[in-house]
């Protein structure tokens, strides 16, 4: 695949953009959780007249939008080509510094102890033993330089290394016909993905960033990196992985972000 290199001017724009993005992430995080976001959404903005006249029942609008979001999950599952690869880039195009992003501020980054760390594996898998970091590092590794696209719109290129998630799932004897793989994280984040994406060749149980052990800010000791999904679908500080047919949802997804979140 031929990837067009951006012009120098674009690269500079990218830097400015990233600074803005970093600023915005802070702004974004400061806002509290909004489970009833649509109740506010209708009284704000263009459709305020409708709700004012009670033409539209707010909860029915909320339900309708959620239904469309579920429909969009299906469409994305259908559009997803398990063999189509996300573009890869030369090391020279890596965004430095790569932005920190989470639902909390940088001073709240969780420190996970390497010695006592165990990765729990449960659900529809044959081998449920807890993994040490050393065991994960002993598996065959690969790396990739890919674009991380945030739901907010900004993007940044980074270099991640680790174990192809498909090899890991096969190694633990996961039921590959199951619908979902769920993740629970040390920072209380949680999310879940579809099995075809879990088995995608670029989906990586990530142990390194830029050829160094994953630093805490990027999810030490381990994160899941998927260049075929938006940033919020890529969990950091993963403590538990489970394979299931029961929809597990996710931290942002339960608040209204699209579940499939694919790109």
């Amino acid at each position: 695949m031929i990837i067009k290199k951006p012009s120098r001017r674009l690269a500079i724009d990218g830097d400015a953009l990233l600074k803005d993005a970093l600023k915005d992430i802070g702004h974004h995080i400061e806002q509290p959780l909004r489970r009833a976001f649509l109740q506010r959404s209708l009284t704000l903005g263009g459709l305020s007249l409708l709700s004012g006249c009670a033409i539209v029942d707010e909860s029915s609008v909320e339900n309708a939008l959620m239904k469309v979001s579920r429909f969009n999950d299906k469409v994305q599952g259908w559009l997803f080509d398990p063999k189509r690869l996300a573009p890869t880039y030369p090391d020279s195009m890596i965004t430095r510094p790569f932005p920190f992003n989470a639902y909390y501020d940088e001073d709240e980054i969780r420190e996970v102890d390497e010695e006592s760390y165990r990765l729990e594996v449960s659900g529809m898998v044959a081998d449920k033993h807890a993994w040490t970091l050393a065991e994960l590092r002993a598996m065959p590794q690969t790396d990739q330089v890919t674009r991380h696209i945030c739901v907010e719109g900004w993007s940044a290129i980074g270099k991640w290394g680790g174990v192809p998630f498909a090899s890991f799932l096969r190694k633990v004897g996961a039921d590959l016909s199951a619908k979902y793989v769920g993740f629970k994280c040390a920072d209380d984040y949680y999310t879940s993905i579809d099995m075809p994406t879990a088995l995608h060749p670029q989906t990586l149980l990530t142990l390194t960033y830029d050829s160094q052990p994953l630093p805490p800010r990027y999810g030490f000791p381990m994160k899941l990196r998927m260049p075929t999904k938006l940033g919020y679908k890529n969990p950091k500080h993963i403590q538990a992985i489970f394979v299931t047919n029961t929809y597990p949802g996710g931290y942002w997804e339960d608040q209204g972000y699209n579940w499939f979140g694919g790109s």
Partner: protein
Amino acid sequence: MDNDTGLIHPLWVRVTHWINAVAVVILVTSGWKIYDASPLFGFRFPENITLGGWLGGAIQWHFAAMWLLFANGLVYLACNVISGRLRSKFFPLSPRAVLADVLAAVKGQLSHADLRHYNAVQRTAYLFVMLDSVLLVLSGLVLWKSVQFPVLRELLGGYEAARRVHFLAMAAMVAFAGVHLLMVALVPRTLLAMVRGR
């Protein structure tokens, strides 16, 4: 056909026009909210003219209304081509005719006596907004599914370039709508025609 019935706009034009208007208002206002989450340029859209309340809500509106715009746009284009209206109403079109009509408009000499007839400026503007809508859908597709549509992505210069294309196409759409509304205000009969057809 239209001449026989005295109809200015057939029913399908009016229905698709108003569905499109609703879709565009939702897409633009929710799109502004999404833009505000990570502004490409040095400004934000004021909160009170955006739709969705927060990023997740805005995205839900945007990704629902996109189907409305897409499906309605397909119906509009199909009817336009099949009925022969596209050819009869919008062509022929030449730069010279556009220039002549622009000059006439500036001098206040452009006739709006027959609303069934589109002058060269109108033809250009409506064709432009059709193409702009197509560009909005295609660039939006790249932003939504940049991995799944590699050819489209590279045609637009990559993900980051597609963001700019999508924004500029939105700006062009809003500019069109501004002029369009101004023209309707100047010739209010056109609004009546788009509602009841004559």
